């Protein structure tokens, strides 16, 4: 359906990624700011010229075509609804450009707005719409041109947390109904996990990891991904159930040989003031680098042979009298670690 190699060269930056998406599939480009995700999306849209590569959609190369002849629909981060047109005319804009007569385009636009639950706001100007409503109009406007490829640039980033939850669910439903390919750009892992069938993680202009959300969340391959999914991640060398990381040896559940990743959640890390009895196998001394609130818990950053994040309860912080700079013992259960080949 979509098969693209996107190379965009700029001064001090080079984007070079391969993206494929099947019909009905939603691919999320996930990555930190400045990774090149939006550039990739704009290249697919025809708003940025490719330095090299190609974009093939439904068997046709489209990378030489201007944006207006690519059969795409795009939802922009800040929606870019035309401020001088009503919601109805915004949605009717695309079909009219494709040659649909005005009256028919408006009937179609009205159907779209009814479908997204905005039948009471047909004639509202964009500034009269709430963020969530504007987002839905932007989606309807993009879908109204019946695109083969739907592009979404941070579609939920401009919404507040509450609206985001609701709009995310709605967007997921519309994406499921959409029969073309969809490429979504986000830096929010939750948006990516909920909305996408497949994640493509981009850092510094290159793909660093690809897979289903579950695979990526379980087997992060870079610090960025590990942080996103909230895991401690290390690269080491395995010999049986032992993995050596920077001189520290951890016992792990899996039996592996050679270069591996080891990941475990901050909740698997236990802290002690004195050396604990019963000697758990993964035990080392560390110094507290910092403590910050994390939800209803506290996340403790630890320096030592390896840097680790630990989640502890407020009660534990008080009881252990945890303060930055303090020496503590760190224990991680082997059964809560997860090792996989690097």
């Amino acid at each position: 359906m979509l098969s693209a190699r996107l190379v965009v060269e700029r001064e001090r930056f080079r984007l070079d990624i391969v993206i494929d998406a099947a019909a009905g599939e939603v691919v999320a480009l996930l990555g930190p700011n400045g990774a090149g995700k939006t550039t990739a999306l704009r290249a697919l849209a025809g708003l940025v010229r490719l330095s090299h590569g190609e974009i093939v959609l439904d068997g046709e190369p489209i990378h030489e075509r201007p944006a207006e002849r690519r059969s795409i629909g795009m939802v922009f981060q800040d929606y870019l609804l035309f401020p001088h047109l009503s919601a109805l005319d915004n949605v009717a804009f695309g079909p009219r450009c494709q040659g649909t007569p005005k009256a028919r385009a408006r009937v179609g636009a009205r159907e779209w707005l009814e479908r997204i639950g905005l039948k009471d706001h047909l004639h509202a100007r964009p500034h009269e719409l709430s963020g969530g409503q504007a987002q839905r109009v932007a989606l309807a406007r993009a879908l109204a041109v019946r695109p083969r490829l739907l592009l979404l640039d941070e579609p939920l980033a401009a919404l507040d947390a509450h609206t985001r939850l609701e709009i995310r669910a709605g967007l997921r439903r519309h994406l499921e109904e959409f029969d073309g390919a969809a490429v979504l750009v986000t830096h929010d892992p939750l948006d990516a996990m909920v909305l996408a069938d497949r994640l493509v993680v981009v850092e510094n202009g290159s793909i660093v990891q690809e897979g289903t959300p579950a695979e990526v969340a379980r087997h992060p391959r870079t610090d960025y991904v590990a942080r996103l999914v909230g895991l401690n991640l290390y690269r080491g060398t395995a010999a049986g159930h032992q993995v050596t990381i920077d001189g520290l040896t951890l016992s792990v559940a899996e039996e592996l040989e050679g270069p591996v990743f080891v990941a475990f959640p901050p909740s698997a890390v236990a802290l002690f003031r004195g050396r604990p009895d019963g000697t758990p196998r993964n035990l080392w001394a560390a110094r507290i680098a910092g403590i910050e609130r994390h939800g209803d818990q506290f996340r403790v950053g630890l320096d030592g042979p390896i840097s680790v994040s630990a989640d502890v309860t407020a009660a534990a912080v008080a009881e252990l009298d945890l303060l930055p700079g303090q020496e503590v013992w760190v224990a991680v259960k082997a059964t809560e670690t997860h090792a996989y080949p690097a």
Partner: protein
Amino acid sequence: MRGAAPWGLAVPAVAGMAFLVLPLVGLAVRAPWTTLPARLTEPRVLEALRLSLITATTATVVCLALGVPLAWLLARARFRGRGLVRALVTVPLVLPPVVGGVALLLVFGRNGLIGRWFSGAFTLPFTTAGVVMAEAFVAMPFLVISVEGTLRAADPRYEEAAATLGASRWTVFRRVTLPLVAPGVVAGAVLCWARALGEFGATITFAGNLPGTTQTMPLAVYLALETDPEAAIVLSLVLLAVCVAVLAVLRDRWIKA
């Protein structure tokens, strides 16, 4: 007290204001109010007023037709020498209008660079069309600068959004860009029209001073001042009224800023 101005600023500020306002007050004080209705309906006044309104409006239409695309080119297109083009376009803004009139004569005059090719078919100098040309020459930079500024301030990503929806470049301009910059176009057109209405130097040089054909209000004022000062005052009052009306239209954009 916040906002209290030091004397060193307050005195010259008040003097400056008086300098700008007093002549207008003088105009109102010396106006022959009792005979004003009769004078306003004098054929000579009406003729000059009619000619002024027609030529200034036509010049504005010409400026819109040529100036908006020019502003778009300066704001959106990338080409070599754009800075030079912008500088050249704004020259009439600072050029003494009479010099503009001489320049127009040299190009479009009966023996001008271009004018000689058309001399058999029609002539521009000393015709109403010549008045429109002189006014457009002087007034167009006002429109171009106003529209270009608005275009630069407008978010070009709306145009990208329109392109992703399948709009051709012409459709993008017509249905997105133009509506977005409409306030700037209106402001520029009003400014352009006011400038055209008051045009004197280029008009009298290029188009002369023929009552009914090329004698616009400012020319009539100048001529009347020598023969019939009261008529000059009346004509001036009319121009002043028109200018105040224009300011009222632009009130929101300028005075409140």
